[in-house]
């Protein structure tokens, strides 16, 4: 059984941080490995005031946004001193998204959480058990907002099989994850959305809110596995 948990409300973090005397800066991901986060390190030419790149001009790569106040060590949890927050933003999506992120996650949660997935699926005539999610049902939970670019979603038997196998693999503590590959055109990206729907729909309770964050074209889902 899966449960989606709200570990963090992105918007509330920003608001909390913005309530203190801070400046927002953006640093391009490419320069990140060379950046020294020592407290004595001063802003260098890699940094731009956030207002100069966001939201007027969406960034072209991942941006790490940090909040800096005037004194103290870098510490997100510190009441005083510098506070650091790193957030990777979707390059293709406008970045005035703090509220939007929340709304997309809430919508998906409201529509999908604990839902009977059978109600969304239509049979493919003579399809030997194959089923698909029609356009209306693709739109309802907001899959396009999550980066799904197709109009319908054919649930391949391979997706269900892959999901079950990945679930088994994930129980191995040694592994950091799984690379899913295959021939071009096999619909591997749709697998991610199928997983997203399955993990939401398999829940039997609406007790916990869900928050989804989008990184590039990927969907970043908080899913806790309950054993």
């Amino acid at each position: 059984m899966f449960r989606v948990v709200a570990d963090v409300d992105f918007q509330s973090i920003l608001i909390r941080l913005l309530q203190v005397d801070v400046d927002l800066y953006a640093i391009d991901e490419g320069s990140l490995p060379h950046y020294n986060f020592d407290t004595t390190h001063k802003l260098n030419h890699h940094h731009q005031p956030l207002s100069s790149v966001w939201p007027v001009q969406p960034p072209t790569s991942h941006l790490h946004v940090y909040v800096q106040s005037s004194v103290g060590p870098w510490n997100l949890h510190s009441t005083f001193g510098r506070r650091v927050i790193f957030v990777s933003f979707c390059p293709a999506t406008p970045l005035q998204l703090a509220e939007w992120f929340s709304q997309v996650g809430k919508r998906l949660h409201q529509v999908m959480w604990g839902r009977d997935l059978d109600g969304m699926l239509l049979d493919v005539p003579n399809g030997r058990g194959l089923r698909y999610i029609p356009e209306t049902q693709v739109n309802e939970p907001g899959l396009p907002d999550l980066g799904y670019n197709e109009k319908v979603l054919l649930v391949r038997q391979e997706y269900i099989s892959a999901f079950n196998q990945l679930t088994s693999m994930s129980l191995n503590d040694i592994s950091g994850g799984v690379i899913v590959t295959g021939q071009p055109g096999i619909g591997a990206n749709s697998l991610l959305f199928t997983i997203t729907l399955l993990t939401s729909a398999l829940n039997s309770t609406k007790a916990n809110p869900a928050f989804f964050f989008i990184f590039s074209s990927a969907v970043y889902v908080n899913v806790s596995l309950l054993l």
Partner: protein
Amino acid sequence: MRDTGLAGHFALKKGVWALTDSSANKQPCVAFYHSGQKNDAWVVMVTSPEREQWYQWEKELKMYHFVMDHFTSDELRALRFVFISFILFSLT
């Protein structure tokens, strides 16, 4: 999700699945990388078969490798039906 140190990367709690894809010019989020490296998040990276797309991640995160099957003939027929239905529905 928590701050993992001076670098400020957010790490994900154990049991979290981080779903991501990769393309020719973009690497998935470094937060995923670091979380996967620490065996916190379990990264599901969908990518093309080209080795350079995934090799480094697979090696450093000790990732499994899963190859999806191609479409069966039944699935291809189903896919054709689904898209034709969508187009016809759009025209009505």
